[in-house]
C-alpha cells in the first residue's frame, strides 16, 4: 500500500506536473524554514530552498520507499545541501537578525503587530546569538529538535547517529544554550 507521498512521487516519475507542484507546495515551507534557521538569512534560505527542491526533482527516481519516508529523504537531501553550503561559506548564523525579519510573512500572525514583531525579533536575535556560540553538532540538534520540532528518531535517521547520541547532544546543547543566555541576560539586565 503506497502512502500519499509515495503516490505523488510515482505520479511525478510518470511525468505528472500537478503531482510535483503538490510536493513543492507541501515541502517548500518546511525546507525554507529549515534553511532559514541554519543560515539566518532570507536570501540564502530562498536560494537553498530552490537548490534543494531542484535536487529532489532530479533525484526522485533514487527515492526508495522501503528505506524510509519521503519526508525523511527530502530532509536528508536538504540537510546535505545545507551542510555543503555551510562548508562553502564557512558561516553559520542560525536564526535571523532583526532587520531581516521585518516585513516577512509570519504564519501565526496574519495581521502584523509591530509590538509583537519587535518582541519576536528581540527574542530571536537573543536566541540566535546563543546558538551561534554552540558547537555545530549541538546547534544542529537544537535546531532540529526545538525549532523544527522533530522527534528523536527522526533526527537520528536524518543525522545517521543513534537515538541516544541525539538525546545527549540535545541535552548538552540545551544546557550550554541556557547557561550562555543566562549569562548574557544577566549582563544586559533583560528578560527573555
Amino acid at each position, binding site marked *: 500500500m503506497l502512502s500519499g507521498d509515495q503516490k505523488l512521487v510515482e505520479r511525478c516519475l510518470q511525468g505528472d506536473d500537478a503531482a510535483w507542484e503538490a510536493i513543492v507546495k507541501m515541502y517548500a515551507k518546511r525546507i*525554507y524554514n529549515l534553511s532559514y534557521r541554519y543560515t539566518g538569512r532570507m536570501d540564502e534560505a530562498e536560494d537553498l530552498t530552490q537548490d534543494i527542491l531542484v535536487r529532489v526533482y532530479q533525484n526522485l527516481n533514487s527515492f526508495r520507499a522501503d528505506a524510509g519516508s519521503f519526508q525523511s529523504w527530502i530532509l536528508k537531501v536538504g540537510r546535505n545541501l545545507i551542510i555543503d553550503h555551510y562548508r562553502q561559506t564557512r558561516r553559520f548564523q542560525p536564526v535571523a537578525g532583526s532587520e531581516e525579519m521585518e516585513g516577512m510573512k509570519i504564519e501565526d500572525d496574519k495581521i502584523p503587530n509591530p509590538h509583537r514583531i519587535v518582541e519576536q525579533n528581540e527574542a530571536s536575535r537573543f536566541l540566535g546569538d546563543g546558538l551561534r556560540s554552540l558547537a555545530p553538532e549541538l546547534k544542529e540538534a537544537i535546531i532540529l529538535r526545538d525549532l523544527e520540532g522533530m522527534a528523536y528518531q527522526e533526527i537520528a535517521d536524518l543525522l545517521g547517529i543513534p537515538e541516544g547520541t541525539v538525546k545527549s547532544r540535545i541535552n548538552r546543547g540545551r544546557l550550554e544554550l541556557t547557561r550562555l543566555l543566562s549569562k548574557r541576560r544577566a549582563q544586559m539586565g533583560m528578560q527573555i
Partner: protein
Amino acid sequence: MTCPTIEDRLSEYLERSLAREEMEQVARHLHECRSCAALLDEMRSVLAVCQSFPVYEPDNALIDKILVRTSGRRRTRSLREWASQYFLRPMLTPRFAMGAVLTALFLVLVANFMLPRVSAVASALAPSEIFRTMDRGVQQIYGGGLKLYDKKNEWQEQFTFYKNNLLNRLGFMIERLDVPVEGKKKPGETQQQPEKAPSNESSLRLLPA
C-alpha cells in the same frame, strides 16, 4: 543523585520521558538543590523561546521559481489568488484609497444637499403611505371603469334608438312609394303567365316525394 547526573537528565525530565522512578529522584533533587532548580527554570524559558520561534511562509514567487526550474511551468493559482491579483491588490493602493475618500466626500455632500427631499421621499415610502396610495389608485381605476361602462351603455341605447328610428322611417317610406309587392295585384291588372322555356326536366322532380 549528584548535580552533574541531574543535569544529564534535565532535558528528559522536562519532556517527562524518564522512567517514573528517575522522575521522582530528579524531582527530589530539584526540591533540595536551588542551583539545579534555577537551571531547570532557565532551560524551560529558553525552550519556550525556541518553540515560539515563528514559522515563515515562503513567497509564492519562490514556488514559481522552483516550478519553472523543474517542471517548466508556473504554479496553479486558486480563484482567490486570481481575485487577489486582479482586484484586491489593485484596490489596495494609495490612488484607490484617495479615490474612495473623494467619492465618499462627494456622496456626503450630495446627501447633505438632498436631505430635506430625502425626508419627504422617506415619508412617501412608508408602508402605510404606500398602502394608502395604492388604495387611492385602485379606487380611481375602478371609478373610471364604471364611468366608461355607463358611457358605453348610454351610447348603445342611443345607437339602438337611432337604428330603430331609421328602420321605421325606411319602412314607412317604402310603403309610401307604393312599389308593387310580389303577391299583391293592382285592380284591373291581369296576371300574365310567363312563358316557360321548354325543359326536358319534369316539374314533378322538384316536388317532394
